[in-house]
């Protein structure tokens, strides 16, 4: 039930916020905060559940699971479940929800109620995407989340918002229909072999697919996720959408919506079509590497601050693509860490850019300069997140990217070496922001206000989260590990067949990455695998006692 409440609370909160505007201009903000607080409590309950589950060391990676009949005609169920991986992303979503409300506090002046309505509904849809385990339901949420996002961009965006919003919607929707086609085709293939008409994730995992069919279906899933991620060449919607959206919209877009693409790759593309996805590895890895470098180059070339940050997202998402298609648990963990760390750092950078725009009415870095003296707090925080984004050891992003490279290195050395260049160019584009905006000769501008208490509190949370992820990533990795291990069963199958690593010893034990790992592993009873291959486990049924019944 708790999973339904996660979604419903935001859904109802959105409705109330929309209606509340009539009697008070400020009420929608507080309602949004209240709804998010309730959700945060639910997430904490779930995390505690996950911990106790880890202690009891049951074989299932699913923390809780809920299945209601929905459309029996087509075997469609309302099936939600959460494992460590989705739980982390849910937590990220709720966390960034707070940030989005906080950074819109003074920026949104018109249509306050409708803004928060859309914001909460977007988040509600995103939570649905992370929780749905019925393919129809997943698609349902996948599409539902883009409508309110469209309004967020098209109403509260900047000068070119109509174009950006339309492009965003068209890219996601058309690619989404490809996915719907692939989903329905997958269901029919499964139906023909088993005689059961079902959209359930677990049932479809067993679908016997012909390799050609599997390839096309895999492509039908891969393209929408690559659009959302986004990977070159499907990235062109992103710079426009991010640049034109209001700050709150950019935070949600960069922090959360992009992660749904990555999540889809991990949750659906790889487990549903292991062979086809494996055959696709060279292409996917190339796309990842090209995204890393091309995104970085374009980022460097921008003079618009939000556009620059948008292109760095393309670059960072390239690491995720690389990590997912490296076919080992280390790289996959790296991809998950990158998702979390990038979610926070990109959101923070957008908040800074949005703050500057609110104060100076420009995003053009050519018109900034020498701001450090005027807004020291803002500048220091911008420096912190720039450094986080460039992959400084000790901060979250570093862990993710290094793990990805470490995992990918075993699979394709040449590709990884090229990808590692991304770590070299990252400082260039990250620091150019600081140099252009905050250093140099002071620009002509009115006096501008530094970050106040509200903004500093929000930023403080994000700084702490980034440092925490950098210093003690094991906390997240332990949570996502069972889920990743489960995805690994498909990987294992592939590896044994293909004999991928012909060189080198197995990669180092994760204890070299974090001393906490060993202790943690002993404490919780999670076996941290010493080999690159995760412990294969047949997909385990959900324990009866934890299953909510309608």
């Amino acid at each position: 039930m708790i999973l339904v409440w996660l979604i419903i609370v935001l859904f109802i909160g959105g409705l109330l916020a929309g209606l509340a505007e009539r009697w008070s201009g400020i009420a929608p903000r507080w309602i949004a905060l209240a709804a998010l607080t309730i959700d945060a409590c639910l997430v904490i309950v779930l995390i505690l559940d996950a911990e106790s589950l880890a202690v009891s060391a049951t074989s299932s990676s699913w923390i809780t699971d809920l299945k209601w009949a929905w459309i029996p005609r087509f075997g469609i169920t309302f099936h939600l479940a959460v494992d460590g991986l989705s739980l982390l992303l849910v937590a990220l979503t709720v966390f960034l929800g707070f940030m989005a409300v906080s950074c819109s506090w003074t920026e949104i002046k018109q249509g306050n109620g409708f803004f928060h309505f859309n914001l909460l509904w977007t988040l509600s849809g995103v939570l649905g995407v992370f929780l749905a385990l019925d393919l129809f339901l997943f698609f349902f949420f996948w599409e539902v989340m883009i409508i309110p996002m469209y309004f967020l961009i098209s109403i509260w965006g900047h000068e070119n918002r109509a174009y950006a919003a339309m492009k965003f919607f068209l890219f996601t929707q058309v690619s989404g229909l490809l996915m719907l086609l692939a989903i329905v085709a997958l269901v029919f293939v499964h139906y023909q072999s088993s005689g059961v008409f079902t959209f359930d994730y677990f049932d479809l995992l067993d679908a016997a697919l012909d390799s050609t069919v599997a390839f096309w279906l895999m492509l039908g899933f891969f393209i929408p996720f690559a659009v959302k991620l986004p990977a070159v060449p499907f990235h062109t919607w992103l710079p426009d959408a991010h640049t034109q959206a209001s700050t709150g919209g950019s935070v949600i877009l960069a922090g959360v919506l992009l992660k749904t693409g990555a999540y889809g790759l991990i949750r659906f593309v790889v487990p549903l079509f292991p062979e086809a996805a494996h055959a696709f590895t060279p292409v996917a890895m190339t796309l990842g590497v090209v995204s890393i470098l091309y995104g970085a180059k374009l980022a460097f070339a921008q003079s618009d601050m939000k556009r620059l940050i948008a292109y760095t997202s393309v670059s960072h998402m390239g690491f995720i693509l690389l990590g997912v298609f490296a076919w080992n648990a280390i790289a996959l963990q790296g991809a998950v860490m990158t998702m979390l760390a990038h979610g926070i750092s990109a959101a923070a950078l957008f908040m800074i850019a949005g703050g500057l725009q609110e104060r100076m009415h420009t995003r053009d870095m050519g018109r900034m300069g020498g701001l450090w003296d005027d807004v020291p707090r803002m500048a220091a925080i911008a420096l912190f997140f720039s450094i986080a984004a460039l992959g400084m050891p000790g901060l979250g992003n570093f862990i993710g990217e290094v793990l990805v490279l470490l995992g990918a290195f075993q699979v394709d050395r040449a590709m990884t070496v090229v990808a590692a260049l991304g770590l070299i160019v990252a400082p260039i584009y990250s620091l150019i922001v600081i140099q252009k905006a905050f250093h140099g000769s002071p620009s002509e501008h009115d006096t501008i206000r530094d970050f106040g208490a509200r903004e500093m509190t929000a930023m403080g949370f994000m700084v702490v989260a980034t440092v925490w992820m950098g210093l003690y990533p094991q906390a997240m990795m332990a949570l996502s590990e069972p889920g990743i291990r489960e995805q690994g069963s498909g990987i294992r199958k592939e590896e044994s067949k293909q004999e991928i690593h012909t060189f080198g010893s197995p990669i180092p034990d994760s204890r070299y990455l974090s001393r906490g790992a060993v202790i943690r592993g002993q404490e919780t009873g999670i076996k941290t695998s010493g080999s690159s291959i995760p412990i294969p486990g047949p997909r385990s049924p959900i324990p009866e006692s934890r299953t909510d019944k309608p």
Partner: protein
Amino acid sequence: MSVLDLLALLPIIVIAAAAVVVMLAIALRRDYRLSAALAVIGVVLTIAALPVSFGMAPTQATPLLVIDHFALFFMGLLLATGLAVILLCYGYFSEREGQNEELYLLLLTAMLGAVVLVASSHFATFFLGLETLSVSLFALIAYPFKNKMSLEAGLKYLTLSGVSSAFLLFGIALIYGEVGTLFFQQIGALLRNSGGGDLAVLIGIIMIVGAMGFKLSLVPFHLWTSDVYQGAPAPISALIATVSKGAVFAVLLRYFIVSHANDFEALFTVISAIALLSILAGNLLALLQNNVKRMLAYSSIAHMGYLLVAFVALNRIGSQLTVETVSFYLVAYIITTLGAFGMVTVLSSAETEADALEDYRGLFWRRPWLAGCFTAMLLSLAGIPLTVGFIGKFYIFVAGVDGGLWLLLLVLIIGSGIGLYYYLRIVFQMMKEPARQEDQTGGAIPWPGGVALSVLTVLLLWFGVFPGVFMELIQGMAAP
């Protein structure tokens, strides 16, 4: 003809009687409200008569009409649609000058035609129903005869409809010449026995498809659509787009299934081509429009194209799934199209039709509820989840995948992408800042129209989120 037959035909009798009553009432006393009320009562009574027939279905009532679940389902659907159109008309015409009482008489005869059409099992009733419907429509389109645009639209529809009727009759004659009967059932049996039809029958069916293509405004028979939709009064455009198309599609489907027309492979090539062209041309032409009614006209062409995808799949997936798909999609299409035209209707004032894109500017900030409903309608037309349009599109996907129609499905995806663009254009207009501050046309919207729109919006969301119950209903009802 027995008494039982009469009982089975009760809905048709009641609606015909209602038309007569309205006519007599006008003759006795001209009263706009009275004739509207009588029309509403007539339609409600007809709907109430459906359960009587339902108890006896399926039955062949007279050689001409068959009362089965399929017919009753579509009767219910079309009558409910007609009721919504009457409600929309009430507010729209009450402000306008002229004698508007006969409007309701014509609406009832149009519905009579539609009801006969969906129950027809014989070419005679097929043709009679179609003509009753069409003749009522000519008059309805040109009803505000002082308006040049309406008159032109009426004339256009009259001429082209005449041509299409001629095609239909020629097609029927060719088939009759070959098999010697006008019964759908017997035609099917004879064709099966003779081991597939010959060229004359095929040409006959293609002519019928062409004639129906005109009524359904499929490419290349679509040229009248945008002008007629634009010229006709908004609620009448809704009637053409929903009742007329729904009835024609239902009878076409029945004819194809009962007379085994799907044995002709060549026919499906023709229909595939029509579907493909309709989807592409409808969507592309809609892109160019700045008039909401014209845009909706082209979008309805595209939607009929989507619907044909399920139709093409008929001989591969069997009649059960096809009928289900077509029924559900038609319901979805009717709800949303009625809603969209209803929105144009309630926003129009006595002087002007609110059909320019510019009229919708800032609607969201002026009338949030109305704009919210319109947005839901447009998103449903675009097939976005939470709305019934999405479930309809999902059905088409299921039928298309089951039939292996990959090319058509790809075209459908492209078409939907294009469609999204022009639907969102309207949504974006509504979100813009209002152009003038004093731009508060009208004030309150007429209550019958408001009720109709609210019910439609609720249905749109209800069937979009919980389609299960309704699907079961269709599954049970919709098998000819």
